[in-house]
């Protein structure tokens, strides 16, 4: 097939020696070795039915809640035994067949010619001629408007095809945003309750340095989707710090109760609930991407990818001494979004 040309000599300084010599395998020359491989393969395949029956036995006989301890780990017995029997059965088929291919089937290399990926010129010309003939048959050259009209008609079909997707979700117009992502159920007088027990909280429940996860009292009345949606926004953290060690700007001097401050728990980066509290520094760290907020300084970002301060909730106490919200959040909680200029949120230096 390949005739060496002077060009080839330049490209390949060593002439192509052709395929390497075929070396016979042990199993080719030694009958005993061949027979051994043969027996191994048959034995492997013969164990598959045994394992398959064991699988069925395990399925019916091993109770679901049995556990086995192997080394330090605890395994569900049924899962382990089903997997071991089934897995080994499948694996053995594979090993047996590959063993067969490698030891007993021929391993002599074969050579096959390649063709160029491209069609030969003659074929291209023939196809081009056929197509030209077909186009000629349609008469489109003379009655060109048909083609344009058809292309236009097909193109415009995108409209009815895509427009119904407009109902994928409600449209986040300014009004809807006001009712959804810009709103939480926090309202004046709403009590702050413990995140787990829903018990209302008193100032005396918190010691200096302590952080409590909390929710609006009304969250408890919600269920299903409404509950999840609301919890994704209105979750808060309450911290008590020594008022003399923190910075409280003039505009927020009535927002706290004796050093008890309340912030949104939803990270302004991409919305993880923030949880890691460093008492000494008053820093709150988001476990997702480590944005760090200074709760002793109006929730400003001190580190990490978040760009906005944590929204603070103004609180006070009611007649019975329970902590309550003075009003809703003054800015939307959670990640920034396009339609609102978040540069007006609280920044370093604001009073």
């Amino acid at each position, binding site marked *: 097939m390949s005739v060496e040309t002077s060009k080839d000599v330049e490209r390949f300084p060593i002439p192509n020696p052709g395929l390497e010599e075929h070396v016979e395998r042990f199993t080719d020359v030694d009958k005993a070795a061949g027979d051994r491989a043969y027996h191994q393969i048959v034995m492997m395949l013969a164990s598959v039915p045994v394992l398959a029956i064991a699988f069925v036995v395990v399925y019916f006989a091993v109770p679901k809640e049995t556990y086995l301890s192997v080394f330090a780990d605890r395994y569900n017995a049924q899962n*382990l035994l089903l997997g071991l029997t089934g897995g080994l059965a499948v694996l053995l088929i594979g090993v047996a067949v*590959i063993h067969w291919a490698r030891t007993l089937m021929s391993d002599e290399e074969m050579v096959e010619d390649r063709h160029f990926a491209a069609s030969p010129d003659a074929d291209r010309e023939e196809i081009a001629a056929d197509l030209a003939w077909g186009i000629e048959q349609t008469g489109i050259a003379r009655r060109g408007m048909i083609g344009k009209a058809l292309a236009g008609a097909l193109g415009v079909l995108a409209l009815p095809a895509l427009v119904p997707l407009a109902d994928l979700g409600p449209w986040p117009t300014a009004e809807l945003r006001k009712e959804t992502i810009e709103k939480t159920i926090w309202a004046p007088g709403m009590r702050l309750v413990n995140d787990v027990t829903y018990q209302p909280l008193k100032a005396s429940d918190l010691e200096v340095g302590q952080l409590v996860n909390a929710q609006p009292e009304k969250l408890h009345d919600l269920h299903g989707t409404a509950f999840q949606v609301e919890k994704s926004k209105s979750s808060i953290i309450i911290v008590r710090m020594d008022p003399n060690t923190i910075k409280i700007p003039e505009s927020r001097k009535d927002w706290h109760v004796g050093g008890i401050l309340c912030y949104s728990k939803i990270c302004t980066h991409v919305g993880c609930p923030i949880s890691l509290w460093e008492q000494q520094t008053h820093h709150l760290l988001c476990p997702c991407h480590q944005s760090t907020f200074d709760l002793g300084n109006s929730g400003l970002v001190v580190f990490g990818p978040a760009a906005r301060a944590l929204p603070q909730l103004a609180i006070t106490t009611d007649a019975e001494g329970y902590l309550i919200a003075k009003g809703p959040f003054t800015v939307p909680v959670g990640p920034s979004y396009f339609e609102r200029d978040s540069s007006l949120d609280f920044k370093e230096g604001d009073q």
Partner: protein
Amino acid sequence: MAEPTTVSSTSPALDVKTPEQPAGINKLAGPATWVDDRLPLASMFKYKNKANFYVKKVFPDHWSFLLGEIALYSFIILLLTGIFLTIWFKPSMAEIEYEGSYQLMRGLPMSEAFASTLALSFDIRGGLLVRQIHHWAAMLFVASATIHMLRVFFTGAFRKPRELNWLIGVGMFSMSLIEGFAGYSLPDDLLSGTGLRFVDGLIRSIPLIGTWAEFFIFGGEFPGDLVIARLYMVHILLVPALLLGLVVAHLALVIYHKHTHYPGPGRTDRNVVGYPFFPIYVAKAGGFFFIVFGVSILMGATMSINPVWKFGPYNPAQVTAGSQPDWYMGWVEGAIRIMPNWEWHLAGTTWSWNVVLPGMGLMGLLFGVLGAYPFIEAWITGDKNEHHVLDRPRNVPNRTGLGVAGMTMYSMFWLAGGNDILATQFKLSLNQVTEFMRIAVFVAPVIAFLITKRICLSLQRADAERVLHGSESGVIERAPDGSYSEAHVPITNDEAFTLTQHEQYPALQAGPSLDANGVRNKGKGVSALRARASRWYFGQEITKPTAAEIEQAKHHADEDESTKALGH
């Protein structure tokens, strides 16, 4: 058609004959004959027809060709186990009270999706096994596809005529990430909810349309009650169907182009050396499918993965410390973590570059660069030939260097995804690790490139050395004049051919359509930029020994031998 007016007397129609069975088909068994009577498979697939696929088609053999096979088989395993899971899984976010057999959660409100995942794990026999096989196979799928892609990259298997198949591969790769993410979200446990929250933030950050995209995808505010059903559709219908179509196209192209082979004696760009599809590959590839499947089952049996009952149902106010996405999303996570907190404010709007650049931007960049690479390289080299013999990575130092640089960048982003773990492990401050990573993602790839290129060049030099002077024998000889030298033994002709089989091209020259360089840039002007790129790409290459040099070296060696012989 018109009837013939006359019938020639020699027409076979006049001969009286009993119909005869074609002899060959009789060799086939009954059912095969039945099929072949209706569908002439034998004619379609016989070797002499030189059809694209025939039973004796030759496939070359190499361990690195198994990587794509692993990806294919784990995809099949995912289809099989996935169908089993769909029988019980309920893609619903409706709230129910859990009544199943996992004691610790009885009476808790949770979504039906989570409850049905618990049912699969605790109430349906074999359900946990299949869930775990499914998840392990997903890991295997993404991992093997990634390594397979690296193999194709470093050996230059994406070159003409295989660019289209490379693009199909990039498409499958990107889709597998979507598929994996969608699957990870389905059980609606704490981790999957946290992942969804992250994606919600990611989508929201897209300039102009972010809020709209968020509301459209989630059917309103996060989390809403639609997204799991929608992701379910994506996970079990949309993406698997697309993947399946692409897999078929990918394999069809492999068959049509024939597999590439590594350089070696007898291997050229005009042939393919290997073993016949039937019986060798049917046995080897078929057997390998069972091995991959068997290993996945054993993994599902012995290695716990995604134990959702330990995380609990999704709770928007909770996050487990160290909550991490599946590993293949780790690089995006890392980029998000180390990105400076840039935000723009323009005319009453906010542009969240801190999220959209590392999230959407980086993913777009990776797939964009991957997709464009074959065309960029061809533009630089001006190479329009078909290639079927693979490159040894050392012989293409710049490509290999770029590949390693890309891998390094990916790894740096990936490591940054564990910046908190790094900080605690190495007792550093998180800030230091993050600052370091911000620099490392740009500097480390450059260093990696330079080092890799150096290594490639010295390997090339060593190859040339071997061809000219043979391999070091390890025997030190003392010459009569007292000097020492190591004796070299000539390498085999087969090896010498393998080491000199790669092509070396001159760099493109800038200039008008007139060709300074022979055929290669005929008919097309080469811009100064392109010529510069080409000079950089080919510069510094170690020219492989020419036939004359090899001849001369041989001559030298012979002379040495004879002088030595005389000396004794």
